[in-house]
């Protein structure tokens, strides 16, 4: 009978990697991929056909909501990668679960993962793990790519020093205020301020950062008002003028990180800082830092208590 492997969780990169690892480690002759939404019927047709040559196949099905029929071949393998719903099935040979990594200051699972990746490649990343996280945030794909570069250049079993890392990795190559906003939404005060300082080091980017934050806060105010009306995600995305995929991936997870009062107050503060900055008042920078800290702390406290405002 064919085998089933289920991959659940919210860390997309890890799910993808696990799917391909499972397919390649099973001595499979050929790998086929399908998107559950649009290619389920194609999967059904092709998986039920038996190969005349008798070889084994792996079928990777992305975005699965329910486990479909298993492939007909005895040595075939179905790798079901879940969308949002957590899948279980008694027939499953293995179930992987990649929960979203927490990134609190005192419990940073991304940094721990970086260290584990280093160990798997036989390099010591203790000295550069934090810097990698600050530079690339939650983007495990980018971090993994950088770690592979470091593994090539570092001696086996050796320690990767910051100098080696700086020579191969583009730290914050294209830094934008978006990195500050992402850090705020993650509740990462230190990272947000680190990005803020790096941006300001290049040139006075106060106006740009304020404008970015203003747009973000305004968008969140509108999202909260729309969610209160209990309308669908697609409609909300349409009203906001963004693609539904982008809304679900980047905007919706950040809804309710702050209270409505906090957001309105924040918009007021940012507008006042904008005017002060245009008047040439240097205090605008201090006010902006304070506001970044306030927003990030509020997110962090909200996540710790598991509450939504």
């Amino acid at each position, binding site marked *: 009978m064919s085998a089933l492997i289920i991959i659940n969780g919210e860390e997309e990169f890890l799910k993808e990697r696990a799917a391909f690892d499972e397919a390649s480690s099973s001595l499979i002759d050929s790998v086929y991929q399908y998107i559950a939404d649009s290619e389920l019927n194609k999967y059904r047709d092709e998986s039920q056909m038996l190969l005349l040559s008798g070889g084994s196949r792996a079928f990777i099905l992305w975005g699965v909501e329910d486990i479909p029929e298993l492939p007909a071949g005895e040595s075939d393998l179905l790798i079901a990668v879940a969308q949002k719903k957590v899948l279980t099935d008694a027939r499953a040979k293995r179930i992987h679960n990649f929960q979203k990594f927490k990134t609190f200051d005192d419990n940073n699972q991304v940094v721990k993962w970086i260290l584990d990746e280093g160990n798997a490649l036989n390099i010591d990343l203790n000295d550069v793990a934090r810097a990698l996280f600050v530079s690339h945030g939650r983007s495990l794909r980018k971090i993994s790519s950088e770690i592979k570069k470091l593994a090539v250049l570092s001696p086996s079993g050796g320690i990767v020093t910051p100098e080696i890392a700086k020579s191969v990795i583009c730290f914050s190559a294209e830094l934008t205020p978006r990195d500050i906003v992402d850090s705020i939404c993650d509740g990462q005060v230190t990272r947000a301020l680190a990005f803020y300082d790096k941006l300001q080091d290049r040139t006075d980017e106060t106006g740009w950062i304020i404008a970015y934050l*203003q747009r973000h806060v305004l968008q969140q105010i509108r999202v909260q008002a729309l969610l209160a009306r209990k309308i669908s995600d697609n409609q909300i995305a349409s009203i906001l003028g963004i693609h539904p995929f982008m809304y679900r991936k980047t905007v919706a997870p950040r809804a309710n990180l702050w209270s409505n009062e906090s957001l309105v107050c924040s918009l007021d503060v940012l*507008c006042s800082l904008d005017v002060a900055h245009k008047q040439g008042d240097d205090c605008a920078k201090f006010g902006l830092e304070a506001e970044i800290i306030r927003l990030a702390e509020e997110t962090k406290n909200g996540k710790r208590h598991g509450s939504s405002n």
Partner: protein
Amino acid sequence: MIFGNICSQQETRQALEADVSIIALVGPAHIGKCEFLKQELDNSISEADLLEVDHTVTSSREVSEFLLSSPLFSSYRAVLVSDADRLTEPAQDAYLKLFEEPPKNVKICLILNDDGFLLPTLQSRIQKIVRWFPLSDEDMNKYIQTNSFPDDEMIKRLSGGRPGFYELLVAQPLFKDLYTLIMQIIQDGFDPTIPTPIMLKNTSSGVSIEKDLIARICLQVTLDSVHQGILYFKALPFLKFSSIITKYPATNVEIYWQRACLNAL
């Protein structure tokens, strides 16, 4: 043809004919000051002896170089500085030397909304200030009839005696809806899910007549809300909004509009 301000027009003509080097026309925007001055200068001097500049410091250097030479075809050379109340301090300093010792056969004409923004040292060197005022109802009616515009009481009220605003309101009636929208927000509250009105989204960065008109509409809303007994502080955020978009033209109108609406709750 310029309507209204007959005395101001006469005074300006006299100043141009007299031996006066530095003239300032002061009054609200979009009432015809700049158009009148251009007409008079076009009739008096050749195009080659007229220079029109804006409020930047590079323009002040351009003016100094222009005035170094004698008039080519006319009895004097003229410089027209529009939006002179937006002159930055460095630009005003650059003009100061010129104003202290103006060359012979030169007229420097400043167009301002408010002479209070000029440095006192510059103000004191202006030899003739001619004040202009918004048009009376009678003059506005003559303007409307002569230009065959539709006679609309609401537009007349919103334009506040400024022909430039009347013309824009006739051409883009959406601005009239802005007044109704603001009154509705003040009375009934604001819905953050409703998109920003299109005429606000389409305002370009920088100084523009559209921004001046939006500011005028916000002022009219504030006045009317007081007359109608609506709580004054509900209209204040819009007054603040209008002040910011005109004083700092580079600000994002949409963001400040949303802020005003949220503060009016």
